[in-house]
C-alpha cells in the first residue's frame, strides 16, 4: 500500500553546541524570565549566586509565558551573552 506522508517531512536542523566553559568568571550569563508569577524572585537568587562566582548577568523577559520568545529577544540573548541557562519552572 502506498500512502502520503502526513508530516511536515522536515529533518530538524542540528547545530553543534558551543563548548562548555571551564568556569563562569568573566563571562556574561543571560537569564530569561518567562513571565510566570514569582519567576523574578527565583531569578534574583540565581543572579546573586552567579555574580558571586564572578559572572556578569543580563536579564531578559518574555512578554507572556504562553507564547514563544519573540525573535528580537532571542537575537539579543545570542549576541549579548556567552552562556545561557535554559530552564523552566512552573
Amino acid at each position, binding site marked *: 500500500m*502506498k*500512502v502520503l506522508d502526513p508530516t511536515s517531512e522536515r529533518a530538524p536542523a542540528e547545530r553543534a553546541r558551543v563548548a562548555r566553559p571551564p568556569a563562569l568568571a568573566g563571562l556574561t550569563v543571560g537569564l530569561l524570565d518567562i513571565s510566570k508569577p514569582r519567576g523574578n524572585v527565583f531569578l534574583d537568587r540565581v543572579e546573586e549566586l552567579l555574580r558571586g562566582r564572578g559572572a556578569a548577568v543580563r536579564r531578559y523577559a518574555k512578554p507572556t509565558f504562553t507564547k514563544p520568545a519573540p525573535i528580537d529577544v532571542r537575537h539579543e540573548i545570542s549576541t549579548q551573552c556567552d552562556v545561557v541557562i535554559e530552564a523552566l519552572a512552573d
Partner: protein
Amino acid sequence: MELPEGLVAVVKADCPTCRLVRPVLDELGAHVVSEDDDDGLELSYRLGVETVPTLLRVRDGKEEQRTVGWSRRGWEAIAETAGFGAGLPESRPGCGSRTLDPGVADELAVRFQGHRLRSRRVEFSILEDEAEAMYDRGWSDGLPVVAPTEARVLRMLGGTARDPQDVVAVVPPDLVPCTVEKAAINAVLAGCRPEYLPVVLAAVEAACTDEFNAHGVLATTMPVGPVVVVNGPVRRRIGMNSGVNVLGQGNRANSTIGRALQLVIRNVGGGRPGGVDRAAHGNPGKVGVCFPEDEEGSPWEPFHVWRGFDAGASTVTLFAGEGPRGIVDQLSRDPESLARSFAACLRTVQHPKLPMIFDALLVVGPEHGRVFREAGWSRTRLLERLDALLQLPGDELVRGAGGIAEGLPPSVAGATLPKFRPGGLLVVHAGGGAGLFSTVFAGWASGPTGSQPVTREVGT
C-alpha cells in the same frame, strides 16, 4: 492531450445507445473516441464525460458545444446539419461513462491528478499491516487512522475549490507552513468526508492565529485543547449533530473535524504529548472537540451573528477549553433563578477564588434555553445578569480566605472583581430536547497574554 477537430463522439462498447448511433457517427464522419482503450479513457476523463455517447463540436482545438445520449434535435444542432439517422427513434438516453465506474474513477484520478500531490509517498511492505505501520510512524493520536492513499486524498481535495499547494496557516510548535494538501491528508487520517474539509481548513487557520495561540494551548500544563464551535448553513449541509449527545460520540462530522485539527498540529506542527505538549492531565477532548450550535432551536440569534458575522455565513469559533462539565438545575422556571444557578457554577471555573484569569464557554441546553425564551431574555441580558452576579468580593478571594492558600494578593481585599474579563464568557445553545441541563467548558489563560476566542469564516 489534443482534441481532434470537428465532431467528436465519446462511446463505450457495452452501451446500447452507442451501438445504435454508430452508423450515424460514420455518416457524419465523426471522430470516435472509445472508452474501451486507454487513450480514449484518458480523453474522456479529461473532458469530464459523465454519459456516453457524448457528442462534441471542436473548433480550433476548443470544445464549442456538447450533447449527451441520442436526441435527433440535439445532434442536428451540434452537427449543424440534418437528415441523418433515418430509422432511429427521436431520442434515447445514454449510459454512464466508464470514467465513473466504481474503482475506475479513483484509478483515473490517481493516474491523471496524482502529480498535483507533492507529499512524499510512503510505501508499506506487504508484510506490514497498514494500521500498525501508521501507529509505528507516530501519525496517530492513539486511535486508529484511515490510510491516506492518493485516491482518498484526491477525493478529500474534491471537497474544496482551493489549490492543494495553498498555504492554510503556519502551524506551531515547529512553525511549518501547512498546505491544503497536508491538511487534507490529516483529514483523511482523522476519518473526515471531503465535504468537511473547508471546515477543517477554517479551524486550522483560526487555531494558528496569534490571538488563539495554539502554541500555548498545546504547551501548557493545564488540561485544555481547541474546542471548535460551528455555525451557519454548513452545519446542516455536512450533517452535524447539534441535538441529543451533541458533545458525545456518534456523529462523524462532530467526531472527526476537531480530530483533523489536532492531527495537523501533531503531524505538521510537530506538537506531541511529552514533547511540546506538557499537559499534566490533558482531557479526553484533546483527541478533538467539534460541535455545531443548535441555531434553529435557540432562543437567541446564532452565536456567529452575535460575534458580527452574517447569518448566511458559515463559521468556526475556536475556544481553548478543558473537558465539559454539567450544570444541573431542574427546578428553576424563571430566568433570574436559572441565571443564579449558572453564576454559582461558573464561579468555580478553574477555581472559585481566581477571577479574570479564565474565560468560559457556556452551552445552554434547550430546556434551559426555553426558560429564557419564554421570559424574553436576550443573550445580552443573560450575560449582563451573569456579570452582575459574578462580581466577587475581594475579601473572599485573598490568599488564606476560606482556609484556602490559593487566591489573590492581600491588596484586593475590600475591592470587587468580576469572575470574567469583559467578553470572557461565551454563550451558545445546543443539546438534546430532554433534560434541564447546561454544560460549561472552562477556559485557559485568557486575553492577549493567553488565548482569545477566534472566529473564521468557512470558505469553499
